[in-house]
């Protein structure tokens, strides 16, 4: 679709997916050879959920917030559980925490397999989508599907179903899977691990645009493991705070042109969350095999090229498969499957690593355990400024490209982040105007 344009400008409009509704748009304005404006507008469902949660019981956020995103419900459930448990002064047992991490591995496997093979890889082949890619490399698409199915299966066994798990509750789970149920996942997970290693080799061979960006990395870090479901929030500049600390530090500004909030550390500094940040801040916590995979894929201990986020995701996919296998081997069914979490007045915070980045929640409860206020800060909101900054750099460095090619590259630049434009329904327009 092409916009009407004034005589002194050129416009390229790349239309994205519009299944039902929801808006995201990108405008790049170029004047006299310089990128003057980059505006990325993204619709954010969590804002509605924050209001919707007010007056609800403290036990409800895991079920309600799981509906924010069809791709990362476990992230929303986990951050919600952590925050409510924090508000109520309750800690779960090690067994429950391990089962939570296992469920989260299922989501990482599912989400990373989807993004790598179906959503991101087609860009590197000049394909419109995974259907075209299947025509070029059917085996690659089949690998993605096979790995994703194993993630779905893990989600079903631990979470009760593959999408919007129903087995998660504040304090733990409604029912703990048996050792036998989890044991049945071992062989599929081993195959998924082998397949993920093949996919990591595959993506390492892609041709990546040359760009290095000095990001301010922010992610969780756990003392014992590669951070997924818990940890402290650290940064490449020495930040080290808990979930309350990051919630206090992050200031979200409303920008008139967009209904999305823009998050800044201390109200000033843009920062990056997601695979590149996790990798840079937790490289030493990867398994030897995951580190070998990274090295073989040409990654150092830090990756500053946003287009190589697909490679980092592939390394994380290997890690998530390995970690799921380790957790299953060490599994002790939690008994009871949940600890009691009586409601009380208080404020609680929870943070976890959604596949696409840091997700933190804050809840204030009254003495009846009803929610007085909720704050949900998704990774896409935190990454918006970095996305715009990347786009500015990429557009500026590639102004010689024809509009269509530049529009494609800009869209790919957004796709590096796997942004949750509007979790169930979404739409992305990319407009490049040259004056």
């Amino acid at each position, binding site marked *: 679709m092409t916009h009407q344009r004034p005589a002194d400008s050129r416009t390229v409009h790349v239309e994205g997916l519009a299944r*039902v509704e929801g808006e995201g748009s990108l405008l790049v304005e170029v004047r006299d050879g310089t990128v003057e404006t980059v505006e990325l507008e993204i619709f954010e469902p969590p804002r509605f*959920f924050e209001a919707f949660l007010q007056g609800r019981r403290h036990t409800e956020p895991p079920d309600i917030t799981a509906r924010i995103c069809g791709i990362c419900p476990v992230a929303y459930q986990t951050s919600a559980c952590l925050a409510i448990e924090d508000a109520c002064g309750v800690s779960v047992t090690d067994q429950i925490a391990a089962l939570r991490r296992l469920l989260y591995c299922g989501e990482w496997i599912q989400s990373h397999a989807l993004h790598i093979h179906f959503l991101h890889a087609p860009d590197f082949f000049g394909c419109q989508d995974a259907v075209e890619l299947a025509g070029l490399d059917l085996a690659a698409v089949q690998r993605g599907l096979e790995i994703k199915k194993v993630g779905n299966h893990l989600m079903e066994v631990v979470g009760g179903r593959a999408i919007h798990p129903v087995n998660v509750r504040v304090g733990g789970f409604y029912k703990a899977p048996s050792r036998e149920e989890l044991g049945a996942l071992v062989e599929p997970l081993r195959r998924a691990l082998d397949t993920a290693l093949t996919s990591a080799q595959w993506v390492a061979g892609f041709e990546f645009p040359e760009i290095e960006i000095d990001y301010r990395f922010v992610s969780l870090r756990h003392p014992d493991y590669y951070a997924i479901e818990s940890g402290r929030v650290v940064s490449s500049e020495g930040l080290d705070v808990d979930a309350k600390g990051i919630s206090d530090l992050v200031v979200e500004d409303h920008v008139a042109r967009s209904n999305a909030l823009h998050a800044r550390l201390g109200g000033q500094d843009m920062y990056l969350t997601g695979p590149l940040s996790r990798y840079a801040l937790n490289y030493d916590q990867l398994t030897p095999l995951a580190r070998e995979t990274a090295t073989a894929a040409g990654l150092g201990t830090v990756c500053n090229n946003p287009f190589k986020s697909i490679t980092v995701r592939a390394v994380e996919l290997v890690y998530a498969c390995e970690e799921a296998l380790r957790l299953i081997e060490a599994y002790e069914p939690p008994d009871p499957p949940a600890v009691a979490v009586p409601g009380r007045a208080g404020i609680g915070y929870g943070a976890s690593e959604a596949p696409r980045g840091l997700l933190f929640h804050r809840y204030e409860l009254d003495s009846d355990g009803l929610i007085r206020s909720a704050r949900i800060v998704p990774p896409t909101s935190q990454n918006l400024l970095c996305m715009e900054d990347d786009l500015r750099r990429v557009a500026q460095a590639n102004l010689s490209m024809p509009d269509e090619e530049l529009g494609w590259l800009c869209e790919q630049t957004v796709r590096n982040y796997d942004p949750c434009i509007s979790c169930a329904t979404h739409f*992305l327009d990319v407009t490049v105007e040259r004056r």
Partner: protein
Amino acid sequence: MEVLVAGLGNEYRSDDGAGPAVAAYVSERMSKVVSKVISEPLDLIGAWDDADLAVVVDATRSGSPPGTVQLVDLGTGGDAGSSAGPMSSHGMDLRRVLRLARAMGHPPRRVVVVGIEGENFADGLGLSPAVEFAVTEAGDLVLRVIDEVSSCA
């Protein structure tokens, strides 16, 4: 005969919950079919693999009056039709997913889409009155389709 009824949509986006509502309606009346709520169309792959019939129920926005029920038979093969546009950053549309399923070699034998025209897709729970009313019509249509296809099988 293996039948999947997939309710596509998100019940927290008002009329986008029409698909899940119809899936629930069918599930209550026909226990022999597998009825699922699916948020992301790509998750149809796996769920509908090799099914004899997949009925996908989704909200539509075509300009018809709210509550209008439409049936589109995507048939048993051939072209699944064009997609809404190029790849999104975060998901795939139904036609693209069907084309992918065919490329992968495990498509359902027949796909029928039942659409209910929505009115309001804003954040929130609950269907618009016209859409709520149409859930019964759409659900009964799905049941008829299953019966007809079953009788021909």
